[in-house]
């Protein structure tokens, strides 16, 4: 726990003097000021710790394995370095722009259309950076597709309908070789492809989705794989039977 760990550490108040400490609590109290700030800054899971500049823009995110006072200090240091890089990029330095762009994408600084425009303006992007940026852009494209699923929905059937609709679009992305690079995004991406493929009895999509989940993320999504594998096997059998007839 962060609260009983780093935030309660004897060294934390000293760190607190170097920064402005802000706590945001999502409460589900209707009409409360800044209630949606967590989702607005791109938060997807609690707890979430970020560094922000005085304008409230996110300049760094604390990684789970660094949840110590030293890790918090490192976060603020990295945030400062990111701010300097951003300033350099804003002045038009192509190298700085290439270095800044994937970092800014991860921090949620760009919407898809803006990102595409920025990307188009970069020159001589090295292959490795290009691969990372392409993966991040695919993640952004997926985020747009998943937008209808991001708000609370009371009706389970409606949730399923939206998941299937999203999964169909994500399958189109996969076929166009636009696959999110971040692990969490990729899991969501392929899981939704499987959900839509099951509904549509789309064997190639089902096989592809499940095979990637097994090969790349096996133990993390074991329950999902165990649940879907028999469905895929049955679907294959049915197809074979149809062929025989």
């Amino acid at each position, binding site marked *: 726990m962060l609260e009983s760990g780093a935030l309660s550490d004897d060294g934390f108040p000293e760190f607190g003097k170097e*920064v*402005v400490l802000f706590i945001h609590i999502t409460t589900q*109290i209707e009409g409360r000021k800044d209630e949606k700030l967590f989702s607005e800054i791109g938060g*997807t899971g609690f707890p979430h710790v970020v560094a922000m*500049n005085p304008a409230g823009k996110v300049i760094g995110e604390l990684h789970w394995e660094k949840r110590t006072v030293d890790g918090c200090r490192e976060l603020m240091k990295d945030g400062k370095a990111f701010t300097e890089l951003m300033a350099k990029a804003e002045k038009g330095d192509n190298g700085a722009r290439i270095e800044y762009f994937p970092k800014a994408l991860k921090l949620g600084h760009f919407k898809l259309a803006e990102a595409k425009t920025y990307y188009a303006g970069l020159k001589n992007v090295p292959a490795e950076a290009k691969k990372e940026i392409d993966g991040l852009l695919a993640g952004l494209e997926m985020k747009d597709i998943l937008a209808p699923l991001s708000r609370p929905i009371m009706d389970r059937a409606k*949730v399923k309908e939206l*998941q299937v609709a999203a999964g169909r679009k994500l399958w189109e992305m996969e076929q166009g070789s636009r696959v999110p690079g971040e692990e*969490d995004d990729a899991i969501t991406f392929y899981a939704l492809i499987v959900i839509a493929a099951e509904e549509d009895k789309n064997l190639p999509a089902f096989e592809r989705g499940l095979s990637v989940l097994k090969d790349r993320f096996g133990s993390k999504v074991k329950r999902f794989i165990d649940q879907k594998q028999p469905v895929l096997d049955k679907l294959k059998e049915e197809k074979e039977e149809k062929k025989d007839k």
Partner: protein
Amino acid sequence: MTPLRSAAIALALFAASGDVLAQADQEQMKKNLEKKLESEFLKKTTWTTDFDEAKAAAKKQGKNIFAYFTRSYAR
């Protein structure tokens, strides 16, 4: 915070058929917030709970903001 994000995704995707939230009991939510604000870790140093105040303080003091996002409701 990757592991928790994964957990959130897992919950959203792999629980039966999606994420269904119960209607929030507003009175209970307010009590939950009060309880959260009484947390021991908040007594050890000075935290700002208002975003505008945090930004104004950061600007005035020439510092960046360390922002901790949590929640007071249970799932």
